[in-house]
C-alpha cells in the first residue's frame, strides 16, 4: 500500500536532504569547481578562485614597506644625487601606500587603478635598479643587492592574474602517464580481488546454506576480519609481510612462491599481491553473507523438484541456484567493485602506493596531490576522473542487471 505524501511527511525527509546536500552535493560541485582552477593552498597567488585579475592589497602594503626599508639601509652608501633620487622614489612609494591603504584583501579594482599600479611597479623598478646597477657602485656592496630585485618581483605578484584554467587540468590528466598507470593499478586490484572474493565467497555461502552443526560459529568467525578497521588489519598484514620478521613472507619464501622474503612488499608485483590477499582475507566473509542472503530466498521446493527429476548437485547448481541468484550476485558484485575501486586505507598503509608508485591507486594519487602538494586544482581533476570511472562501472552493471536494482518493490 502506498499513500501520497503531504507536507507533514515531507518534514521527515528534510534532515536527510540537508545532509546529502551539505556533505555530498556541495563537496562534489566544489571539487568540480576546484578542478577548473589552478588552485593551490600553499601559494598566495593561487590560493583562491580568480576569474579575472585582482589586486592583493595587504601584500602590496607589506612589499612597499620592505622597499623603503631596504632603500633606507643602502642610501648611506650612495652619492648625494642618487640619495635625492632614492628619497624621491621613497616618497612615491609612501604616496602609493597611502592611496591604496584601504584595500586590505585580494579584490577586484578598476582598470585604471590596475594600470596605475602596474606602471608604478615598472617605474620604481627602473629607477631603483638604475642606481643599484650603476657602474659608479661597482666596488660598493649594497646590503640589499640581492633582496631588492626579489622584493620588486614580489611587488609584481600583488597583481594576481586569473588562475582560471578551464579544462587545462583535464587535458593534462589525459596526458598524465601516472594517472593512467594508477587507473591500471586500481582496475587490477579491483578485478582480481573481487574475482577471488566472489568465487571463495560463493563456495562459503553454499556451505553455510547447508544445515551443518556449528555453522553459526563459522559465521561469527568470518565477521571478525570484516568488522575490524581496515587500517588495523593493514598494519597486521604489513607486519606479517615484513621482509625481516614477517611470518607470511617467511612461509611464502619457504614454499618457493617468492625469491626472497623481502620481495613481498619490496617489489611492485609482490606488493600488489600482498594487498589483494589482505583484501580477500578481509572481505570474503562479507561477500559470502551477501550471497547467502540471496541463496536463502530461493524456494526449497525447486531443489526438491530438481532432485526428483534426477538432477545432480552440479546440474542443480548451474540450472537452478545460479540463475535464481543472479540478482543478488550482481548487487554483491556491484557493491564490492565500487568499494574496491576507491580503495585507500589498505594500500596507503600497507605500501603507501609504493614501491616506485607500483601500487598507487587513484585515491592515493589524488590524496597525495591534494594534501601533500596542496595542489587542489589538479588533485580534484584526478578525483573527478575517478568519479567518471565509477559512473562507467556502475552504468555497465546497471545495463547487465537491468534498471531493476533501484526499482520500487511496492510500486
Amino acid at each position: 500500500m502506498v499513500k501520497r505524501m503531504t507536507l507533514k511527511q515531507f518534514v521527515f525527509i528534510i534532515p536527510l536532504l540537508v545532509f546529502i546536500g551539505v556533505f555530498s552535493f556541495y563537496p562534489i560541485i566544489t571539487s568540480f569547481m576546484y578542478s577548473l582552477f589552478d588552485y593551490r593552498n600553499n601559494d598566495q597567488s593561487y590560493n583562491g578562485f580568480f576569474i579575472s585579475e585582482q589586486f592583493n592589497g595587504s601584500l602590496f602594503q607589506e612589499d612597499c614597506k620592505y622597499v623603503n626599508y631596504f632603500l633606507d639601509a643602502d642610501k648611506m652608501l650612495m652619492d648625494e644625487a642618487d640619495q635625492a633620487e632614492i628619497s624621491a622614489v621613497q616618497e612615491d612609494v609612501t604616496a602609493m601606500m597611502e592611496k591604496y591603504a584601504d584595500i586590505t584583501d585580494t579584490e577586484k579594482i578598476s582598470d585604471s587603478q590596475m594600470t596605475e599600479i602596474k606602471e608604478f611597479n615598472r617605474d620604481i623598478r627602473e629607477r631603483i635598479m638604475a642606481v643599484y646597477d650603476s657602474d659608479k657602485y661597482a666596488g660598493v656592496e649594497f646590503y640589499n643587492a640581492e633582496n631588492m630585485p626579489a622584493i620588486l618581483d614580489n611587488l609584481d605578484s600583488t597583481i594576481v592574474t586569473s588562475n582560471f584554467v578551464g579544462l587545462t587540468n583535464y587535458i593534462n590528466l589525459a596526458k598524465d602517464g601516472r594517472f593512467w598507470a594508477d587507473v591500471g593499478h586500481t582496475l587490477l586490484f579491483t578485478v582480481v580481488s573481487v574475482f577471488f572474493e566472489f568465487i571463495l565467497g560463493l563456495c562459503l555461502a553454499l556451505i553455510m546454506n547447508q544445515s551443518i552443526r556449528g555453522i553459526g560459529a563459522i559465521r561469527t568467525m568470518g565477521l571478525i576480519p570484516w568488522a575490524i578497521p581496515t587500517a588495523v588489519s593493514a598494519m597486521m598484514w604489513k607486519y606479517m609481510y615484513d621482509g625481516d620478521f614477517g611470518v607470511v613472507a617467511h612461509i611464502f619464501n619457504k614454499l618457493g612462491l617468492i625469491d626472497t622474503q623481502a620481495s613481498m612488499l619490496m617489489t611492485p608485483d609482490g606488493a600488489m599481491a600482498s594487498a589483494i590477499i589482505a583484501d580477500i582475507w578481509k572481505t570474503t566473509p562479507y561477500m559470502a553473507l551477501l550471497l547467502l542472503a540471496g541463496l536463502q530466498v530461493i524456494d526449497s521446493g525447486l531443489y526438491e523438484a530438481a532432485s526428483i527429476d534426477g538432477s545432480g548437485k552440479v546440474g542443480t547448481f548451474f540450472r537452478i541456484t545460479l540463475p535464481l541468484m543472479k540478482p543478488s550476485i550482481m548487487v554483491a558484485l556491484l557493491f564490492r567493485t565500487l568499494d574496491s575501486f576507491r580503495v585507500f586505507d589498505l594500500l596507503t598503509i600497507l605500501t603507501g602506493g609504493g614501491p616506485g608508485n607500483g601500487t598507487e591507486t587513484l585515491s592515493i594519487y589524488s590524496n597525495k596531490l591534494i594534501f601533500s602538494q596542496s595542489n587542489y586544482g589538479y588533485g580534484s581533476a584526478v578525483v573527478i576522473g575517478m568519479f567518471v570511472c565509477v559512473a562507467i562501472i556502475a552504468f555497465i552493471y546497471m545495463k547487465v542487471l537491468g534498471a531493476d536494482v533501484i526499482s520500487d518493490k511496492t510500486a
Partner: protein
Amino acid sequence: MKKKTAFDWACLVFIILFLFITVFPFLWIVITSFKTDADIHGAATYALLSAHPTIENYIAVIFDKGVLNAIKNSLIIAALTTVYVTITASMSAYIIARFRFKGRTLLVVIILGVSMFPQMILIGPIFNMFYQLGWLNSYMITLPYGCITLPSAVWIMMTHFRQVPASLEEAAKMDGCSPWKTLWKIIFPIAAPGIFASAILTFISAWNEYLLSLTLNSDVSWMSVPVRIASLQNEYTIYWGQITAAAALVTIPTLIIVLLFQKQIVSGIASGGVKE
C-alpha cells in the same frame, strides 16, 4: 546417518582452511604482542611462544602512545554518529517505504549513488569547509560521517519498514495518531530489529572510518583508533611489539560487538544485498 561423500570432505577441508586463515593473523598478532623486541628481532621471530613473555608492549601502548585516548575518541564519535544517523535514517526510510511522492525514485537513486561514489571527492572541500569554520580537531567530524553511513542505514531500514503490515498504520490513523506517533509507537517497535541492525552497522563503519579522520582530526589527541594505530609506523623504527599490542587491544571492542550482535549484523548485511 548418511555416509560422507568426497564432496562433503572437500567442504570440510574448505571450511577448516577458511577458519585457519581467518583466525591465524589474530593469533599471530596476539603471540607477537607478548614478545620482547629482542625476541621479535632475533632468533625467536617465528617462535609460537616467547621465551620471555612480557606485557611491556601493552603498557607502552596504553600509557605512552595514547591508544586508550584514541579508543575514547572513536567511541564518542561512533556513538554520536550512530544516534543521529539512526534517527535521521529511520524518519526518511519510513517515508520512502510508505509514501508516494514526486522524485521518490530519484531520491532512491541518489541515496544509492552517494553510498557508491569515491569518498575522495568529498575530502578537499570538506577539509576547506572545516578549516574555515574552525572545526578541525573536534567532534564535528561526526557530521561528514553521516554521508558515509546514512545511505546504507536508510537502505537497510527501508527493507525492514516494508515488512511492517500497512493495516496496523491504517488502524493507528483511524485512532487519530499523528505521523510522528505512528512512527514511534507502531512502526518502531515492530521494525526494531531492522533499526537495531542498521545502528550496529553504522557504529562499525564509523568506528572503522579512516580517510575523514586522518584528514580532519590530525592532532594526536583527537586521533581515532585506525589513524592512531596507522600513525605508530611513522616513527623511525617500527616497534612491531607495540603495534601488535595496539592491534590486539582494539580488536577487543570489535570482538565484543560481533559476539553480542552477530545476528543483527548478519541481517543488516543481508538486507543491504537482497534484491527480491
